[in-house]
């Protein structure tokens, strides 16, 4: 690793805790952000010369705080900036500060930061944008590209979110036990939304690294909520799904279905982590939607070959998920397992009642087409695939359906000829 990548990694890792601490100090998101930026610039200058500090986060907080105080003072009285040496000599201050910031203090700061980004008054889109900007430190341009909007529009979205928070009278004291319990679900949901934004993009585009960002957030949440099985489940779910990323697209960028994937391409280390996390979570015997979805992902991960997949168990898990979180999309997923277990007719019967609610949903029409094709009902299958193509969200999705259609047409030609 070169020096600059090491420093960049250290700055990224320190970011949530440092911004959280600076926010506690200045009680203003913009000031905290600017202070952190200042500290990072100084780190890039100072660390290559003097070596990394013992505690990078404490260093960044102290330097950022001093820099911001200078800025405030300068704006106030037009005072001269003190020499760099005066604030970069942190030998005395660093150790006690590091002691003080260790453990629970950091934890509360990061929690507060996450809670602020997931403020209930903000719509989901603003929560995600704000968290990616403030907690993950992505640039406005990166976030704008990820969400396929212009930089100006994203800038405006983030500014609006900040303004709302400023008006909303956000409490800056340490979040209490009740608040933690109530709001960790919102933070978890935001994290999973970030992951799904990246997952649905699927390719090497600007959105794909959102998955890694979400996993980083989940690991952070795990440290904050060490005994919360749903957070373990969330982290497990995301690492298990992300483990399959290298096999999800072929060389031409087209979607490879789970059963056709080269399982040797799956990331064994991420799978091991996911399995360990879901094991930990299940021990608590407090099931929740993330744990169930992670358990399903774990069953796929445990099958060395598609034929070894425990579809009966997956069906049972989806049934449990349906009870916990009834949704036509869950039923649709369950139907895939049912199709494997009891054939396409049973699966089709299961999804038919969903049509009124899912008739505009790409995956519904894709699955319906596939079940119909398996049953030899070709004309109906084609109609479903045609509708699906019109609803595809990405070129890869459209190409996948096109292959289904081509196969149907080939088979029809063969039977006719």
């Amino acid at each position, binding site marked *: 690793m070169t020096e600059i990548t090491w420093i960049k990694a250290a700055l990224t890792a320190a970011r949530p805790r440092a911004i959280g601490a600076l926010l506690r100090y200045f009680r203003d998101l913009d000031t905290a952000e600017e202070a952190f930026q200042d500290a990072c610039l100084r780190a890039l200058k100072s660390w290559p010369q003097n070596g990394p500090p013992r505690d990078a986060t404490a260093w960044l907080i102290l330097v950022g705080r001093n820099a911001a105080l200078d800025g405030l003072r300068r704006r106030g009285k037009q005072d001269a900036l003190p020499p760099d040496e005066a604030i970069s000599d942190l030998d005395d201050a660093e150790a006690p500060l590091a002691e003080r910031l260790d453990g629970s203090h950091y934890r509360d700061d990061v929690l507060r930061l996450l809670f602020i980004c997931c403020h209930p008054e903000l719509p989901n889109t603003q929560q995600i944008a704000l968290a990616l900007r403030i907690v993950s430190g992505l640039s406005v341009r990166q976030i704008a590209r990820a969400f396929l909007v212009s930089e100006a529009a994203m800038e405006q979205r983030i500014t609006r979110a900040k303004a709302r928070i400023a008006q909303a009278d956000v409490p800056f004291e340490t979040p209490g036990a009740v608040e933690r319990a109530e709001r960790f679900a919102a933070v978890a949901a935001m994290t999973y939304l970030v992951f799904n934004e990246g997952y649905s993009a699927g390719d090497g585009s600007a959105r794909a690294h959102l998955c890694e960002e979400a996993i980083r957030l989940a690991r952070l949440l795990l*440290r904050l909520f060490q005994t919360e099985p749903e957070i373990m489940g969330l982290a497990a779910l995301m690492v298990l799904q992300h483990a399959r990323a290298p096999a999800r697209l072929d060389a031409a960028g087209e979607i490879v279905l789970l059963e056709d994937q080269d399982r040797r391409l799956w990331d064994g280390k991420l799978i091991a982590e996911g399995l*360990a*996390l879901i094991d930990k979570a299940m021990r608590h015997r407090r099931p929740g939607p993330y744990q169930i979805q992670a358990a399903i992902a774990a069953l796929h991960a445990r099958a060395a070959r598609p034929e070894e997949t425990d579809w009966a168990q997956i069906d049972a898990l989806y049934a449990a998920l349906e009870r916990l979180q009834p949704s036509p999309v869950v039923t649709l997923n369950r139907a895939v397992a049912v199709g494997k277990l009891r054939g396409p007719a049973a699966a089709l019967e299961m999804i038919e009642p969903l049509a009124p609610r899912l008739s505009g949903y790409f995956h519904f029409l894709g699955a319906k087409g596939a079940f119909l094709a398996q049953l030899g009902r070709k004309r109906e299958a084609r109609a479903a695939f045609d509708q699906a193509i019109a609803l595809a969200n990405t070129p890869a999705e459209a190409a996948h359906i096109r292959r289904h259609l081509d196969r149907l047409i080939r088979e029809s030609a063969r039977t006719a000829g």
Partner: protein
Amino acid sequence: MARLGVVQDRLTKSGKLGPSLRLLPTTSATTLRKTQDPPLVIDGPFAETKEQLLGFYVVDVAGLDEALDIARELAAANPGGAYEVRPVALYNPDRRASAGP
């Protein structure tokens, strides 16, 4: 990783490399505390520290100097962090193979 493999191969060829392992991150850790009866199982690592144990190597060497030489080679191949060198007090080899009937 490739550079680390070179060092490990060299150690293997010289017959000095014993078992070595890499641990998953501490977010996967569960801790059993035996300070009470029955012991308490808690989520998370034994101690929350900035430095974490990532894994270990067992090497068969004549003394500290040689162990440090190996640690230097490993460190050069995989910068960052630290290698703590400690003598093994008791060494039980893997007994699974001989556990059969």
